């Protein structure tokens, strides 16, 4: 999109420029431009020998808006989704005042570059991290809005996904302010632009699609069929097909639900492996999934048979057999019932034989 010429000129700053705030009098030395978005330009700057990111815009209100979001992020415990806010101020240039804010500099490749370097094995892990963060964000009443790989950076090691542009973050129930067509469910004709968790989850689904189609693709007539067709063509996306389908059609009510289904996709292998280990060593201590499996009780599994969690909860004894066919809930239920009945019959027959032998 062509930018407003005024915006570009006003905020264009050459490296070496010193920016001093009007209110807090902090001095920042511009190192280089990091990028620009619809609402301003982000620079890498030096402050007291540390590197910071500085965003400025001649539209003071959009700066204020983003600062509001970052401030409320800061109140969310344990959230690492957005960068942390360091300073807000105005810079008085001759003729015009420019508002800016300073945030933590998040260093690393963007999401797609990271995956190109590390391979598709990392897709699942990164999406899981992202969904955990989104869950926290949604719980606090926000929706990220303009979620796309360009706004995601992977720092590390250890690899950790972070969001760098909070310009689109909106209170739930309001309308989405900023979006990118490819990641917008409205563009594909698959939903409204109301800020609700499902809006972000659609974007996560499209981010997964984007990993296989780095150049993205344009809408022909819109609709789910068009996107799923592309998903089916990609060998890397095949395992995520159901998850992507559910995310794009608004089947998930929370990021947690989606997260658990992705965990499940990655589970079957871990499962058989961990089960073998479990049979050797009685104390399960081999990683997260394993720990979760050992806490599961057979009874719990029955009662929560419809929730995705139940698949990851292991059960001892009778339920073990059923795990092989856990994809088909129906058959699983009936087979476990059959099993129980068989066991009861066998035991009662044995018991009857035992009693009979005692009597005679």
């Amino acid at each position, binding site marked *: *999109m062509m930018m407003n010429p005024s915006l570009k000129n006003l905020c264009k700053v050459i490296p070496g420029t010193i920016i001093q705030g009007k209110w807090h009098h902090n001095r920042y030395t511009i190192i280089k431009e990091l990028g620009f978005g619809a609402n301003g330009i982000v620079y890498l700057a030096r402050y007291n020998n540390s590197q910071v990111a500085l965003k400025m815009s001649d539209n003071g*209100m959009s700066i204020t808006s983003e*600062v509001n979001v970052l401030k409320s992020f800061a109140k969310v415990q344990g959230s690492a989704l957005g960068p942390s806010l360091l300073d807000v101020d105005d810079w008085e240039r001759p003729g015009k005042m420019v508002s800016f804010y300073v945030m933590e500099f998040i260093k690393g490749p963007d999401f797609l570059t990271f995956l190109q370097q590390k391979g598709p094995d990392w897709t699942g892990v990164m999406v899981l991290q992202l969904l955990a963060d989104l869950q926290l964000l949604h719980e606090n009443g926000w929706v990220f809005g303009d979620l796309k790989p360009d706004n995601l950076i992977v720092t590390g090691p250890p690899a950790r996904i972070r969001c760098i542009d909070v310009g689109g973050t909106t209170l739930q129930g*309001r309308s989405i302010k900023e979006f990118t*067509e490819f990641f917008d469910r409205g563009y594909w004709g698959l939903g409204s632009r*109301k*800020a609700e968790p499902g809006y972000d989850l659609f974007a996560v689904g499209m981010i997964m699609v984007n990993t296989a189609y780095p150049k993205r693709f344009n809408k022909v007539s819109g609709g789910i069929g068009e996107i799923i067709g592309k998903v089916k063509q990609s060998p890397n996306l095949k395992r995520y097909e159901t998850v992507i389908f559910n995310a794009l059609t608004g089947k998930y009510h929370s990021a947690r639900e989606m997260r658990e289904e992705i965990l499940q996709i990655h589970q079957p292998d871990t499962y058989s492996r961990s089960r073998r280990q479990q049979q050797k060593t009685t104390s399960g201590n081999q990683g997260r999934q394993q720990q979760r499996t050992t806490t599961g009780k057979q009874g719990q599994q029955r009662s929560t048979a419809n929730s995705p969690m139940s698949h990851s909860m292991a059960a001892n004894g009778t339920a073990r057999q059923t795990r092989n066919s856990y994809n088909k809930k129906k058959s699983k239920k009936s087979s476990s019932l059959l099993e129980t009945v068989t066991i009861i019959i066998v035991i009662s027959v044995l018991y009857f034989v035992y009693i009979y032998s005692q009597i005679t």
Partner: protein
Amino acid sequence: MKTGTIKQILLITDGCSNQGEDPIAMAALAKEQGITVNVIGVMEQDVIDDQGMREIEGIALSGGGVSQIVYAQQLSQTVQMVTRKAMTQTLQGVVNKELQQILGGGKTVEDLPPEQRGEVMEVVDELGETVELDVLILVDTSASMKHKLPTVKEALLDLSLSLNARSGDNRFSVFVFPGKRNDVEKLLDWTPKLESLTSIFAKLTTGGITPTGPALREALSYFNKKRSLRSLLSRDDESFFEESV
């Protein structure tokens, strides 16, 4: 705080006017009546010449609105962005006026320390979500716009999708210029949804001159007509809306 309805004219064109009144003057007239004029210049392979560019910027400037020149592919995003931006601008103006009365001495939001600005912005955001919005869309259908019209239609549908996600009411009406007989022709009367455009747009014929000035004048008078009509029926009108919701 209770604000009235925000009124906007959205002009979509690809070049310079060549007949009738000066469109920049007409835009200034609109601003005097509390109506904001936004302009989007649509390019394809062709580039809008200097004169056209100046006119587009001039109309938006004197109409108190926002202007943007885009390639046809980016029209959808731009239409909603421009509308929203202009709406926020108007609301900021309203809030600034209130603040000036409170603070005195011609002070604006920019004179507040950044910490307090945030609270003002929250008010603007809240208003932007709930205020009623009337947008009169004015589409240039001169010959050069012919193959851009499907994109314009898409963009307008997208606009209604975006704005209808707000909790406040929206009303749109669509005019094209030049019309079959007059300078301007009404395509769609005030309606909250633009879906009906799909069938109408297919039948549109393009060609002829570009009477941007007269089109703006007509649009203005249409706004006024509606206002007087509504003031007559305002009570009934409101209760009707409540019932229908």
